[in-house]
């Protein structure tokens, strides 16, 4: 039950913020690749830096166990090919 609730609530937060940022509009991504609109880059990297620093701080205070976090395995060739 808590799994269903956390999935629905965190997912709703994710979807709400993505729509607010304009990611419901495919022209945002095209604009990023044409370098006419930098919002995709700004949103993604702000989020990554915030979450990464946040995890580091929470780990320092012992609120998060870094060892139990899921880290994608480093199949670098596959990740690069998939990024295409």
């Amino acid at each position, binding site marked *: 039950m808590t799994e269903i609730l956390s999935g*629905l609530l965190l997912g709703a937060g994710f979807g709400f913020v993505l729509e607010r940022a304009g990611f419901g509009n495919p022209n945002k991504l095209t604009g990023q690749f044409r370098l006419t609109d930098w919002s995709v880059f700004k949103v993604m990297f702000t989020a990554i830096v915030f979450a990464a620093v946040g995890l580091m701080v929470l780990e320092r205070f012992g609120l998060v166990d870094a060892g139990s976090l899921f880290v994608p395995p480093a199949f670098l060739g596959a990740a690069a090919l998939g990024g295409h």
Partner: protein
Amino acid sequence: MSNAKKILSQQQYLNPLLAGLLLGLVLLMTFVITGHGLGATGFTTRLAAWIGMYVAPAATNANDYLGGMVEEGKPLNAWITWQVLGVAIGALLSAFLAKRIHIQLDGKKFLGGSMRPMTALFGGILAGFGARVAAGCTSGLGLSGAAVLSLAGFTFLGTFFAVGLLASRFLKEEK
């Protein structure tokens, strides 16, 4: 309502840096609560396994990748299913509040109006294929993977932006 009026009545998109902070907060909360990040194609893969279970059960069971998911007969029984459902609800709510709900084909001047759904479908198939090769999509590997500072996440993001930049050079401008 004319198009110009429709656009005027819409709310502006959120400032990218503020949206990024909020997205980072949701991502951080997800890691703290569940131990993993946010995703999207994890669900579509499970959906493919679920459809395969009914349409082609023998082939799905024999498949190295999908077989494991249908073993217990409930490929959709996973956290990510609820998360993706939540994404749809959250995005719908946001679009409704910002008066952005209407049906349209984006960029229909590009590659001919009637061909647009087909080119979009082809792009979607390519993106889905790439996400399984990389074992993650822009959300699962790019965003969540980079937030835990994984090499795979940054490798994905680097090639994602680099190849996207290159590929868009080879396609016609929209106007």
